[in-house]
C-alpha cells in the first residue's frame, strides 16, 4: 500500500487555517521594499505562516501577491508569488499619442466619436459609440509623427 496518500487529518479548509490580507501600498514604493521584513514589522505579529498577502499600490500601478513563509512579532519572511505592473488607463487629452485628438462629430451612426490627425485633418476612424472605443482604435492605428 502506498505511504504517500493524503490523510483526512492533513486536509483542512484554507479559510480555517490561514488568513488573506489586503494591503494598500503607498504610491511610489518600490516592489523590493515590500518584500523586506522591516516593511511588515508592525503587523507581522498578526500574520500566520503561509498566509497570503495581496498588495495593491494606491495609484493602481502595481499588484503583488506574497506568501508568508515565517513570521513573528516584528519580522516576516516572504516569497513573491505574483508581481504585475498594471497598465495605465489613458483617459485625458494629454495622454493621447501626439498629433491626434478624439472629437465628437454628431448624432448619426457614422459620426459620433471620431479620431482625427491634427496635422492634416484626416479622420483615422469614425462612428465610434464611446470615447473608449475611439481610444482603442487610436492606440492601434496612431500614425507616428
Amino acid at each position, binding site marked *: 500500500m502506498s505511504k504517500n496518500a493524503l490523510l483526512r487529518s492533513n486536509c483542512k479548509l484554507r479559510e480555517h487555517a490561514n488568513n488573506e490580507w489586503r494591503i*494598500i501600498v503607498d*504610491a511610489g514604493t518600490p516592489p523590493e521594499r515590500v518584500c523586506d521584513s522591516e516593511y511588515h514589522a508592525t503587523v507581522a505579529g498578526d500574520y500566520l505562516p503561509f498566509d497570503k498577502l495581496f498588495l*495593491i499600490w*494606491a*495609484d*493602481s500601478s502595481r499588484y503583488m501577491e506574497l506568501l508568508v513563509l515565517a513570521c513573528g512579532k516584528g519580522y516576516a519572511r516572504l516569497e513573491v508569488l505574483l508581481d504585475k505592473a498594471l497598465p*495605465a*488607463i489613458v*483617459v*485625458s*487629452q*494629454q495622454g493621447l499619442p501626439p498629433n491626434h485628438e*478624439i472629437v*465628437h462629430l*454628431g*448624432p*448619426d*451612426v457614422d*459620426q*459620433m466619436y471620431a479620431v482625427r490627425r491634427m496635422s492634416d485633418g484626416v479622420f483615422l476612424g469614425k462612428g465610434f*459609440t*464611446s*470615447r473608449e*472605443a475611439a481610444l482603442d482604435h487610436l492606440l492601434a492605428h496612431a500614425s507616428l509623427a
Partner: protein
Amino acid sequence: MTPEERRTCAFAQHTARHYVSYRGTLDKIVESIRYCMGESAPDADTLSTFLRKESTQLILAGEYEVGLWRNIDKSYSLVSLAIPIDVNIARRRLSHFPDNPSSMCAWCYQDSKGFSALELRPVLNLKREIIQPPRYCHPVCMRPLMAMRYMVERADLEAAKPKPEPAPPVTVPILAAPPKRGPGRPRKAQP
C-alpha cells in the same frame, strides 16, 4: 441590434450630450430624440418601448455613454456619461459641490430628495472608505465619476514627480591637442 436601433442609440447619445443631465417624463425624452431624428424617427410608442427595455439601457450605458434609468418617483433620467478630456476641467468639476452633496449625485447633480438612500451609493476610495468630503452617486454615474477621479489623480501624481535635472552641457574642444609623447626608444645619433 438592428441598424435602426443603432441609429436610435446614436441620436439618444446626441440628446444626452445636449442636455448633459435631464430628469423628467419618458415622453419628453422620446419627444426630444424624435425631434433630433427628424423624418426617419420611429413612432413614439416603439421608441418608448425600446427605451424602457433593460437591455437597451445596459447597452446605452455600456457602449454609448448614455445613462437612462427610471427613478423611484417614476420619472426618467437621461444623463451623458462622457467625461471631460481636459484634466483642468475635470479637476474643477471634482472640486465643485452641489447645494446638497448628500442627496445630489456627484456626477449628474440630480436631486434624490428623500430617496437618496435608495437611489445613491457612497463614493468609496481604494480602502473601501467613503471619500472625504462625502459624495454620493447613482450606480450608472459611478463609472464616469471614478474614471474622472482616476484621471485627475494620475495627473496630480505625474505633476508631483520630481523632474530630472537637465544634463550639464558637454564641452568638447573642436581641435583637441595631441597627447604629449614621451622620448620613445633610444635612437642612434645622426651621422
